[in-house]
């Protein structure tokens, strides 16, 4: 066994990230009010440097740290770069909101950085307890961020719900870990796979243990029937945090699930075939229920919450199709995560921009948006079309890729159900588009013109949001029409966990 600190330098990006977070906290103390915006730029610059640093340092690296607790491979590098890039985009999206509507800006960015650190470690961990700690780092940062507008009743309700549900699901997860350890005596992913493959007669405790781990993870990604918290929390949280919950925390949880499933369950082929059924049922229930319930939503945040539940169902279908002899499914899941994040980022950036102007968040408030904010409307429209899975946007290509992977593994019925759920999704996305492009501009409750009430509606959106919207929309089309560079990166990431 090699000394524990043998190649600690491979963790430099993580140490630097923690340092960056503390730097932001510290700078916050010295900056006068009104200059706090600088913190956002410090965070973004730091993240950009870290992306470059990770790419240069860890390119083609394939090592295990701490006797196999952490993996520094192409899979973790892919997700690290992805998460940090996402972090930059989220900061850009939330800058105006944070500046005008939130107090304690320094802590906001610091916590964001800590949560990204948690996400990065989640993608690297190949041991249950390490993964748990990383997950908690992410969750604790999010608990605080969700409750950031502490004077709003809605926020307080959602923050409390989030903490309670989060704590319970963490406890369930931990209990599952302990039961797996008590039966197999190991917590590393690859050793779990060996254990599962060898034991001929699986004890009920092991089944329960693995099941509880699964339940805990399903809470985190808000899969049906563990999704109830999502709409309330999404509705009450500050808008940028809602975006971050929908995009970042889900992607991180799926990064962990991908590695856990591919390294811990899939190699034990016989057991995995049994668990595939469980995943398939969860996926089917999640995609159907998420999309059906979204039909009745009037609040944009709740709509997007249920829509994200629906998308989780699609991704779970991809997890179902993971197999030891094909990387198609894991490629599909990663492609879907990237495409979904980019698309959702555009949608949220547009909605946050609209919220900054009006403070409104109902679907009907979008009436006539195309008339006074054509750019915003076009980006939002494209984002919604992409979520609905229509070409030429990434939404179509990623769905086609993922569903092909699912069908290829013999789950044609699941792929068919996913395609059918997409149709349901199309209906409510089109409803939003109807408000943007077809319905006339909304008048207030007393018939007053909204433009007079919200003069900001006639001004251009802020520069940072235009940046996010422009690059995001371009990326949506680019990935939809020519995804090869991304797929190449994903394939090399897949190779680290599948074969």
């Amino acid at each position, binding site marked *: 066994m090699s000394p524990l600190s043998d190649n600690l330098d491979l963790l430099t990006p993580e140490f630097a990230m923690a340092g960056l977070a503390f730097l932001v906290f510290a700078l916050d103390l010295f900056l006068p009010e009104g200059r706090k915006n600088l913190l956002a730029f410090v965070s973004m610059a730091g993240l950009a440097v870290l992306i470059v640093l990770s790419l240069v340092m860890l390119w083609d690296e394939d090592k295990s740290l701490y006797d196999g607790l952490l993996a520094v491979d192409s899979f973790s590098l892919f997700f690290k770069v992805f998460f940090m890039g996402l972090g930059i985009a989220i900061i850009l999206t939330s800058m105006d909101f944070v500046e005008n509507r939130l107090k304690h800006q320094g802590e906001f960015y610091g916590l964001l950085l800590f949560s990204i650190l948690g996400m990065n470690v989640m993608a690297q961990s190949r041991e249950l307890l390490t993964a748990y700690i990383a997950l908690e780092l992410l969750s604790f940062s999010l608990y605080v961020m969700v409750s950031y507008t502490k004077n709003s009743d809605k926020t307080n309700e959602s923050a409390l719900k989030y903490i309670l549900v989060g704590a319970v699901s963490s406890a369930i997860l931990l209990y599952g870990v302990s039961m797996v350890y008590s039966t197999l005596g190991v917590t590393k992913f690859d050793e779990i796979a060996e254990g599962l493959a060898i034991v001929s007669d699986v004890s009920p405790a092991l089944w329960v243990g693995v099941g509880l781990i699964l339940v805990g993870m399903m809470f985190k990604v808000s899969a049906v029937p563990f999704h109830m918290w999502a709409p309330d929390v999404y509705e009450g949280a500050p808008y940028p945090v809602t975006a971050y919950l929908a995009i970042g925390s889900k992607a991180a949880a799926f990064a962990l699930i991908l590695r856990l499933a591919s390294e811990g369950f899939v190699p034990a082929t016989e057991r995995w075939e049994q668990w595939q059924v469980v995943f398939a049922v969860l996926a089917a229930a999640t995609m159907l229920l998420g999309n059906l319930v979204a039909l009745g939503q009037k609040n944009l945040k709740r709509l997007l919450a249920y829509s994200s539940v629906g998308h989780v169902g699609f991704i779970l279908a991809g997890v179902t199709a993971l197999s030891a002899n094909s990387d198609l499914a894991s490629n599909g899941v990663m492609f879907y995560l990237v495409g979904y994040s980019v698309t959702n980022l555009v949608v949220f950036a547009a909605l946050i921009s609209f919220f900054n102007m009006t403070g409104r968040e109902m679907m009907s408030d979008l009436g006539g948006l195309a008339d006074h904010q054509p750019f915003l409307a076009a980006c939002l429209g494209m984002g919604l079309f992409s979520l609905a899975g229509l070409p030429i946007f990434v939404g179509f290509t990623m769905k086609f890729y993922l569903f092909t992977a699912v069908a290829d593994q013999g789950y044609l019925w699941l792929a068919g159900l996913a*395609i059918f759920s997409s149709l349901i999704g199309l209906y409510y996305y*089109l409803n939003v588009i109807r408000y943007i492009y*077809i319905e006339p501009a909304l008048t207030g409750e007393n018939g007053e013109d909204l433009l007079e009430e919200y003069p900001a509606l006639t001004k251009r959106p802020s520069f940072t949001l235009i940046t996010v919207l422009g690059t995001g929309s371009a990326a949506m089309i680019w990935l939809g029409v020519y995804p090869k560079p991304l797929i190449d990166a994903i394939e090399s990431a897949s190779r680290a966990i599948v074969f």
Partner: protein
Amino acid sequence: MNDFNEIAMLLLIVVPLAGSLSMMFMPGGQTKETWYFAIFIAAISLCLSLVVFGNYDYNVGGFQYVASYEWLPGPLDISLSLGLDGISAPMVLLNGLVLFGGVLVSQTVHYRAREFFVLLFALAAGVYGVFVAQDLFFLFFFYELAVLPMYLLIGVWGSSTDFGTFLRTKEYGAMKLLIFLVAGSILVWIGILALYAESSDLGAATFSLEGLGQLAESGKIDEDFQKWVFPLFMVGFGALAGLWPFHTWSPDGHVAAPTAVSMLHAGVLMKLGAYGIIRVGIFLLPEGADAWMPVLISLGTINVLYGAMSAMSQNDLKYIIGYSSVSHMGYVVMGIATLDNIGMAGAVLQMFAHGLMTALMFLLVGSIYHKTHTRDINVLNGLASRMPINTFFFAIAGLASLGLPGLSGFIAEFMVFTGTFRTYMPLGILAVIGAALTAIYILRLLARTFMGEADERWADLTDSSRVELSVGAALVGIMIFVGVWPEPLLRVINVGVQTIPGV
């Protein structure tokens, strides 16, 4: 020379798509300039269509200008493969013609003209793509691309129908159309995935039409599998072709759509459905197709009769034409379902002929509606004295529709009838009855709208604009040309039809 044609094929897709994307960055509000630019793009597309059609060598036949551009290697192995055969060549030409005409008459679109053309060209690119793609992924990609812009095109620029007791908003028409078509494409998508999974089981996982066609030809694809997958394509693509009972979106959608969109949609887009049944259904699943043809031809016959009878009882000009499209697409479906070389060639020719005819009708109705703001044939009357040229063109389109010899519709329908009589005699008789019903509703429409004494309120009415009449004259010219001398089209179509398995 071949390189030139291959590039032209690629440009067929790229030009409208690039036009669509570049128009997004044009300044808004400049209606005139946008229109000129749109004409420019449409003209290039038309020239490219003429080039690839004209250069198609019917002595050689088969797929020509075949080119493949690697897109996503690896397990999925998707390439952008292009190729043109005798079935798709006339369709490409048709799309070029109707697109050019549609853009010209969109002079009247003033509200957000830029966004209108962005969506219209995205649609056109999708249609071209379906006709030239030789890979299931891209075929489906372009198929969805052609359907996607319809919602906004109808919802934003369309018109609602209000007959007092009968109200159909444009939002309703748009949503109904899109839900039906996407529901159809769901089935297609499932079928495509099933085909991929099957080819993967056979150890040759591919989306390429050529590869799958070879599997089908070698008889490796299980017969039971073919029998359950074929109906997915039949109904899925059939929904877009207006196949009864999945046709109800078609009249509502066409009525609500603005003129150019109706022209493109009834003229070309519905043909995508019929084309899909041939290209994907029959080519890849010949045994499945063989088993399902009796069902398909029965549905086609119902289409013909039901569409014609519905058209007889409508009072809205556009609804009459909408239902007549349903009826005429029935001939296409019947011709395909005969699996007979004459019937199939008739079906393809009918696609071309009906595309021109219905585009012309929607163009003329659009012009009437633009001037009178009504499409109610109880209100309109005696327009012949006010809009003589429009009336003249309408009469020709109507006569083509009821199959007058010397116009394009006659030959196509005659071939479909011949094919049907050779295979399903009783249904052939019903189809001929359908043609007689067509005469009733067309003559009723002509008599009510154009004949008789003009009402006072139409006193100041003038004839359609010069642009509309020029496009109309061109379409009439082509219809007569095809009607009198169909050989240039038929020799290409015949070469294509020969390669269809089972024909």
